[in-house]
């Protein structure tokens, strides 16, 4: 048996040991997850920039097609086409406040991946765990296609395809396909597919769960089969375009990009696009025949096709917008799938918040009025009426509210404020408000980023594995 297979089997067993109390065996899901032949086909690459400390350490790992930025250590792990973005990690001497405690960091924070397998997974942001402020750990964890581990240290967890865990420390948990969890800390929790849960203890609690039979049309998962469904097919159809940008060392630069905007070299851009000032298009984003207004952003694994984004739009990791018009400041959460049709377009009014993991899939034209909150599955006007509410009305809730499959308890005003504050913060760090040399963010800093590649063993028992490498300035 080759070293790669030995390593993979070991990772599976470690995850299984952690999930034994939940009686969950990842083995059948893992069988189709890593194809050994593919692991030697793709190079890994990393960013070099004066804006982020460089300290990469790879040990006994396979890294095919993965990207690294900042401080990161990977040991005994398999990463396949994953993005490990350490550009928001905390720096030495930074003070963090948690309740009545104030901690000062004694060293720069590092992403530490150990005994884990991540497939097409995004790791971003920083550890929100006050117990490990200097280490964003991911250990004994298996994450499937298009999972997002965002500011969420993980120990002994399984994330299904399109699962997102956001600002939450998780231990020994199963996060079902297309679930979004933002809850601070979770432990020994088995989350069904399609669960959207945003919990801020003492402030608010939001919960929605997709009808399983309807979610299955979009994302399905069963043992010993690769995930399938509309969301998977959607990406598969566009795989070739990504192949092209990864195959060529030098791509032609697109000249119409303003100097204040950033279009990643590993993004797919197809005619005709208009990109305004302060726009950020991250790697593995896909933009086709669309306009991105001033300060808009398209994060990793986003698809924006035949659409117009007015400006100051956040299109969070993995979100997809097809045949849509989005007004100023519309926020589209992680992995949302907004799918209008050529003759029946989707219009989303100014200031709307589209919750993470929302699916809007329409056959008739649909307009969402300005300043609304939208969640869950929306396929027509009736479902929109059930799964949306004006932000003004939502802000008046101070006890409980439920609509359809959504349940809410707590302060609606706190919930809206938390979202609005976070959107503002995301725009800020992405450089949307850059002007006169001030307020630079990722859009401006990424222009000072260059890339290097590293290659795996191509032959022999170590085929697909990478040599142990330390990369420091």
């Amino acid at each position, binding site marked *: 048996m080759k070293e790669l297979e030995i390593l993979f089997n070991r990772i599976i067993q470690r995850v299984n040991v952690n999930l034994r109390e939940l009686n969950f065996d990842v083995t059948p899901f893992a069988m189709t997850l890593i194809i050994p032949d593919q692991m030697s086909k793709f190079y890994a690459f990393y960013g070099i920039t004066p804006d982020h400390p460089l300290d990469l350490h790879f040990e006994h790992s396979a890294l095919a097609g993965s990207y690294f930025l900042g401080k990161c250590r990977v040991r005994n792990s398999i990463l396949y086409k994953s993005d490990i973005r350490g550009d928001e990690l905390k720096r030495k001497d930074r003070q963090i406040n948690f309740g009545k405690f104030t901690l000062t960091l004694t060293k720069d924070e590092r992403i530490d991946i150990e005994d884990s397998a991540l497939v097409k997974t995004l790791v971003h942001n920083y550890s929100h765990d006050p117990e490990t402020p200097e280490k964003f750990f991911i250990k004994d964890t298996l994450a499937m296609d298009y999972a997002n581990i965002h500011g969420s240290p993980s120990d002994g967890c399984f994330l299904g395809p399109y699962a997102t865990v956001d600002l939450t420390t998780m231990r020994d948990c199963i996060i079902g396909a297309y679930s979004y969890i933002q*809850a601070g800390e979770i432990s020994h*929790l088995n989350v*069904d597919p399609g*669960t959207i*849960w945003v*919990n801020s*203890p003492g402030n608010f*609690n939001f*919960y929605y*769960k997709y009808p399983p039979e309807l979610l299955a049309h979009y994302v399905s998962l069963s043992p010993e089969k690769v995930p399938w469904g509309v969301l998977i097919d959607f990406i598969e159809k566009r795989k070739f375009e990504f192949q092209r940008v990864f195959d060529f060392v030098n791509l032609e630069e697109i000249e119409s990009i303003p100097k204040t905007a950033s279009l990643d070299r590993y993004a797919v851009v197809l005619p005709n696009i208009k990109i305004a000032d302060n726009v950020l298009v991250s790697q593995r984003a896909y933009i086709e025949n669309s306009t991105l207004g001033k300060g808009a952003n398209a994060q990793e694994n986003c698809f924006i096709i035949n659409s117009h984004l007015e400006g100051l739009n956040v299109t969070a990791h993995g979100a997809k917008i097809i045949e849509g018009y989005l007004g100023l400041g519309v926020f589209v959460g992680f992995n949302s799938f907004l799918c209008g049709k050529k003759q029946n377009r989707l219009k989303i009014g100014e200031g709307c918040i589209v919750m993470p993991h929302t699916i809007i899939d329409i056959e008739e034209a649909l307009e969402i009025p300005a300043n609304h909150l939208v969640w869950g599955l929306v396929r027509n006007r009736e479902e929109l009426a059930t799964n949306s509410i004006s932000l003004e009305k939502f802000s008046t809730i101070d006890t*409980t509210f*439920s609509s359809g499959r959504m*349940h809410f*308890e707590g302060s609606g005003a706190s919930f809206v404020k938390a979202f609005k504050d976070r959107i503002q913060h995301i725009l800020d760090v992405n450089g949307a408000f850059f002007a006169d040399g001030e307020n630079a963010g990722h859009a401006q800093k990424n222009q000072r980023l260059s890339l290097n590649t590293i290659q795996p063993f191509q032959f022999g028992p170590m085929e697909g594995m990478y040599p142990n490498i330390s990369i420091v300035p």
Partner: protein
Amino acid sequence: MKNYLVKDLMVPISEYATVVLGTPLIEAIHVLERAQEAYTISKYQHRAIIVLNQDGHVVGKISQLRALKAIETEFDFTDQIEEIRKFKFSENYVAQLRDKYRSREKIIKEETLREVAAKKVEEFMQMPTPGEFVSEDCNLDTAIHRLIAGTHLSLLVTRGEQIIGILRISDVFAAVFHEMMTIAENKNS
């Protein structure tokens, strides 16, 4: 206080309402009614039915609550309620939700009652749990502890391996508070 033992207050199995496995609910209720009519020793009526297997051993118990639970429709929202509880909603919210869901379905419907009447006792009986037994020679203190700790309405009284009777909470209650009143009266006189 008089030194009661469990056997002083228990109802012997022979005087209790008993049915065997396989008995339909409606028949079990008839047996209970007949046992209530025949039982005149205490003013407290029997409220439960003991279920015996074919060898005459006690295998379960049906309280009034269990019988009512059998009538209540199996709602498909039970899983949803459990899910909501798992995701840290308050008990108040869960209670509100349960009421909301329940109000959608009527319990007393002719069709439901007809169906439930035919349900076999083993489908809804309560199996005895380890803390539900008490030896006939135990004192009342032990029995009271077990009733309270397990929130039981009765205990199964054992002699060796055999279950010989039922100790009802109503009889324990009567004995304790009768004694309390006697003490209070003696003090005042």
